[in-house]
């Protein structure tokens, strides 16, 4: 009986719809995108079936596109850095909170995730615009008579991306921090270490796997964000995802857009590879 229940007659039909969906409408489209990046852009059709490397040579030979890619990666890096610095105290507090408080903190932390990115960006627009709330306060108190430029520049984009990705960082850090027994910290304190020493020598090194995972997640999400750069950058801060969409939708050059997307993926992969190398060295440096 048990043998039959666990037997080889697997009900594969259960997984077929989901698997077929992902293969046909996810794997195939990406494969198609990759293939398309090696075809000529067409005149009447979106592409001609003539193989070429032209999309890559023209994208890689364009200094403007290099500059945009550089800015995209820079913004991704800064977003990661700021979410780490701001997320660490939040995660530490969350991991050490009692279970009652923790539930409430989680609701506060997760609720921004449940509100769409367009609405959240709009909230920032109300706050950061030239005649927004912050500038109205600044002018009211006479701090800066001409107001501050808080939006439609890289600063505005950064505020938006840090806000959006902060919860992801906190969740991944608090997962790691939760696994560190508080006794370790207490033991080092009772042996005479200051709070700062206990933190740097015990807690932080042990939380590195969470730091590692959180940074990776936030970087990958941040370099591909689209809504924030458009709404809070106001087309003043062009990033590669914006360029890809513009090339595809406005210029109707699908192969060109596909090549730009592939280059962005390759560049992020290169950054991640470098990051793995550095992180490995950091981890090795810690072990005795």
């Amino acid at each position: 009986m048990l043998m039959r229940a666990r037997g080889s007659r697997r009900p594969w039909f259960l997984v077929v719809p989901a698997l077929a969906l992902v293969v046909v409408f996810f794997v195939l489209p990406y494969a198609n995108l990759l293939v398309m990046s090696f075809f000529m852009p067409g005149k009447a059709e979106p592409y001609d079936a003539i193989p070429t490397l032209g999309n890559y040579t023209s994208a890689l030979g364009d200094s403007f596109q290099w500059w945009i890619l550089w800015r995209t990666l820079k913004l991704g890096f800064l977003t990661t850095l700021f979410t780490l610095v701001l997320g660490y105290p939040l995660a530490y507090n969350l991991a050490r909170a009692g279970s009652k408080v923790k539930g409430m903190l989680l609701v506060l932390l997760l609720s921004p995730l449940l509100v769409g990115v367009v609405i959240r960006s709009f909230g920032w627009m109300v706050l950061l615009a030239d005649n927004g709330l912050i500038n109205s306060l600044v002018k009211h108190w006479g701090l800066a008579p001409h107001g501050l430029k808080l939006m439609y520049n890289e600063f505005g984009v950064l505020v938006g991306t840090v806000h959006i990705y902060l919860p992801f960082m906190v969740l991944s850090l608090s997962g790691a921090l939760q696994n560190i027994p508080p006794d370790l910290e207490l033991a080092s304190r009772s042996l005479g270490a200051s709070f700062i020493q206990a933190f740097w020598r015990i807690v932080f090194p042990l939380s590195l796997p969470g730091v590692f995972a959180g940074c990776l997640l936030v970087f990958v999400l941040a370099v591909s964000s689209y809504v924030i750069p458009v709404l809070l950058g106001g087309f003043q801060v062009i990033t590669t995802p914006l360029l890809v969409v513009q090339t595809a939708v406005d210029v109707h050059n699908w192969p060109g857009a596909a090549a730009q997307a592939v280059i962005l993926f390759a560049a992020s992969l290169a950054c991640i590879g470098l990051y793995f190398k550095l992180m490995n060295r950091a981890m090795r440096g810690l072990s005795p």
Partner: protein
Amino acid sequence: MRHRRLARAAFLALIALLYVFLIAPIVIVVVASLNAGRFLVFPPEGLSLQWYVKFMNSGPFVRSFFFSLRLAALTTVITTVIGTAAALYVVRHARRNNALRMLLVAPLQLPGIMTSLALLIFYYAIGLGGTSYLGLLIGHVVVCMPYVFLTVAAVLYNFDRSLEEAARSLGAGSVTAFRRITLPIIKGGVIAGAVFSFITSFDQFPISLLLSGVGTTTLPIQVFDYLRFSFDPTAAAVGTVNILITLGVVIMTERLVGLESLYVGGRQ
């Protein structure tokens, strides 16, 4: 000792400030929707419901609102069924098949805007046309299904299979055993997955951006189109209604299964 207490107070103040940062834009949207003026300024200009009236009277906003609700509902039904089925198979019959599991959650790993572009080009290549309702629906299903799969799989991992086997050995058919034993136990995961799926579809932006067309404009796209070229507080009213719907869904979930299942399920 005083020194330490001061440090602790400073730390808690920092934490409070960071939570303010997290919640601020959401609270601001609600406040702006009730504001009389076009811009939220200090000192405030008074209360008004004019932006809600403008929202109700705006054909495009109302149409896209109901369109988004229908699309999210249909997406949720489809993803809940196929995501749950896939989770049942993977946890029970292919536990060690990492490739299969990774493939099923792959849509969460790649950026939505790129998936959207890939789908747009793919639809054109297979003759579905760039912006059909079916294409949009499939796009939503692709990016929402992994949530159901993950939440149901998380619950199933801790499921004691012998309960179901006991029911079977006592004479229950496989359908009865599933309906009477398995389903009640995994209910929390299924509902949590459905909630995630609904919210993800209702708030979906990148997939809809490239795949929605005339007559298939979703609410986030409609709001985005307004905000892209001008600053219109009607968006605040739309946003507040959006926030209230999300809140309603979450509270309903809390009543039905408790919020922990959302967190536990979602973290997996």
